[in-house]
């Protein structure tokens, strides 16, 4: 088994891993950039070392420094968390070459799943369904002939491309000629390569993913699915487990396919196989994330399995302590990502100091966070402040608990996505579980009026504040400008105006 784990990450996930180490009685080592000196993962650590200046390229991405540090402080293993170096096969290999244990999959599995083309080919061989499409580089005539067998609507996509350039939607065979012409010319202009291919368009599809755990003895188990359809620009905002669209039969089927995909690359540790699930209950491989995921807690809440602890056990050479038959779903769990972004202003990132903080507590509520009162939110790292997770007997109860937990969550000084989540929890379509990856574009409006109208209350609150300021100003005018006196007066006034 492992003895001392270096955690090559920061924020909430560093805290999460530190806690798992503590629960297993393992020592752990924290790293920090200069911007993170007072982060909880540093203060709560038993051992912590500076890794460099704030920019990630000079700190959390410096694999060489991280390995040297691990060796110097006597760590026997490195857990990368998510992001940063988590899916860097070269780093994983370097860790292993340095004689340390990599708490994650083998570098070969990371590499294969990291290359989209190789990943698709590898899993297809294992019988995993891919989004139907054509090969790359066919002629117009060949593509027009192939199209009906793929089915409409479909997308014409640039072979060399990305970012929507050289992409056209086609709804019937009559539109093929024009779409091919414009797509090819756009692709030529953008990438200097006019090859295109066809891909079935999945209208109203959901993002459903399956959590995998695999040990080094060939035991691979899935921990059921998560639905993560609520996304904005491909960033997940709300996740839940199970999915409202998956029944026992589909769950078993998707689980088996996900296990096959993992086995195809000789997968070890925790990983996630992502699928698109269409309206007809057909699902297609998207990609495999070869690391711990942000949204892993919803799976932990419904299965009772501590995924990070299992990762550490597996890395330490232990067998999985359970089989597929032991995995049972208990209730429903939901996660809201609390980001430092302003939902009223196009999700613009918000920086500043946390001047007020009160976390929700009580039964059925879990908060994974790396924040503190007085903390400076810097522009150096991603905007995830906290993950708010609730558990209930049913989906309805998980939503009710989320609603009150969001109401209890107070954070001032920076803008957050809390108002966005409150609006989502009150959204009837969301409550009905009618989700898909274009939900936010098609069915959501941050500025739409809410269920109840509290404009009169807002009017009263602002007017009372204005009235008190007015009174204060008069008092101040009579008194002097001493800040101490001002402070005393404010306190006295607060009391009088109650």
């Amino acid at each position: 088994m492992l003895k001392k784990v270096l955690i090559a990450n920061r924020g909430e996930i560093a805290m999460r891993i530190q806690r798992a180490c503590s629960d297993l009685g393992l020592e752990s080592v924290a790293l920090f950039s200069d911007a993170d000196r007072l982060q909880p993962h540093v203060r709560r650590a038993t051992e912590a070392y500076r890794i460099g200046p704030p920019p990630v390229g000079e700190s959390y991405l410096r694999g060489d420094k991280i390995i040297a540090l691990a060796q110097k402080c006597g760590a026997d293993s490195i857990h990368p968390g998510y992001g940063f170096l988590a899916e860097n096969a070269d780093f994983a290999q370097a860790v292993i070459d340095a004689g340390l244990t990599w708490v994650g999959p083998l570098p070969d599995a990371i590499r294969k799943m990291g290359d989209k083309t190789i990943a698709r080919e590898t899993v297809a061989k294992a019988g995993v369904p891919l989004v139907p499409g054509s090969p790359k580089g066919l002629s117009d005539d060949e593509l027009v002939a192939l199209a009906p067998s793929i089915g409409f609507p479909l997308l014409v996509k640039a072979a060399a491309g990305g970012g929507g350039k050289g992409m056209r939607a086609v709804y019937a065979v009559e539109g093929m000629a024009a779409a091919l012409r414009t797509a090819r010319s756009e692709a030529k202009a953008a990438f200097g390569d006019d090859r295109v291919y066809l891909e079935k368009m999945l209208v109203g599809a959901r993002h459903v993913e399956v959590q995998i755990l695999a040990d080094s003895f060939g035991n691979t188990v899935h921990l059921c699915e998560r639905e993560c359809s609520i996304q904005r620009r491909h960033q997940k905002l709300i996740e839940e487990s199970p999915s409202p669209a998956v029944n026992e039969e589909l769950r078993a089927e998707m689980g088996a396919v996900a296990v096959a995909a993992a086995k195809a690359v000789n997968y070890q540790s925790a990983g996630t196989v992502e699928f698109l699930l269409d309206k007809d209950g057909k699902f297609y491989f998207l990609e495999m994330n070869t690391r711990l995921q942000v949204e892993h807690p919803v799976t932990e809440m419904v299965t009772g399995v501590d995924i990070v602890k299992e990762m550490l056990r597996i890395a330490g050479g232990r067998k999985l302590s359970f089989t597929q038959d032991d995995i049972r779903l208990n209730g429903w769990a939901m996660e809201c990502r609390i980001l430092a972004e302003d939902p009223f202003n196009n999700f613009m990132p918000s920086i500043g100091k946390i001047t007020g903080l009160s976390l929700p507590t009580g039964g059925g509520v879990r908060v994974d966070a790396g924040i503190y009162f007085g903390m400076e939110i810097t522009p150096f790292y991603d905007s995830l402040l906290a993950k708010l997770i609730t558990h209930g007997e049913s989906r309805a109860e998980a939503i009710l608990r989320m609603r009150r937990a969001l109401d209890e969550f107070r954070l001032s000084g920076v803008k957050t996505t809390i108002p966005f989540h409150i609006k989502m929890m009150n959204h009837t379509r969301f409550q009905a579980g009618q989700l898909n990856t274009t939900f936010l574009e098609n069915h959501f409006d941050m500025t739409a009026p809410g269920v109840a109208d509290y404009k009169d209350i807002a009017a009263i609150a602002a007017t009372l504040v204005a009235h008190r300021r007015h009174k204060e100003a008069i008092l101040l005018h009579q008194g002097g400008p001493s800040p101490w006196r001002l402070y005393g007066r404010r306190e006295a006034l607060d009391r009088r105006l109650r």
Partner: protein
Amino acid sequence: MKYITTVDGTQYTIDINDDHHITINGERFDVDMTTLSRTGLTSLILNGQSFDVDVDERDGAYQVMLKGVLHDVTVEDERTRRLAGVKGGLKEAVGEILIKAPMPGVIVEIPVKVGEAVTKNQVVAVLESMKMQNEFKSPKDGTVKSVRVKPGEKVDQNTVMVSVA
């Protein structure tokens, strides 16, 4: 004391009778509003209904966050209003307004030129930060007074990008 208060375009007449009673559009309420010093934590109980509110003041205008909804509020006391002959609604910003970068980043685009006429909410700058592109709009109808940054330029927090008058 009487106030004319406008919330998201709707106007209310509010009379603060005493510390514990107000009249809003003619209806009287028991009110108990308490703020915990230096935390911004404000609790409002109105005829027994309890509300946790955040009230933010900026340049005389208020933003009230209530049950996850943000309201823009202006408060004018009746006498001032009468004297000024104001007809209600948000006062337009006056003078030269500096549009600053709220965080460090890289300028992507400045789609306006000095001397150009702009309308309220017209985009005057695009800043990339934390892997995202953010648009900045003119707060009023006016003219671009200055453009102080160039596309591709790295800027610090609070750098003035554009000014409008």
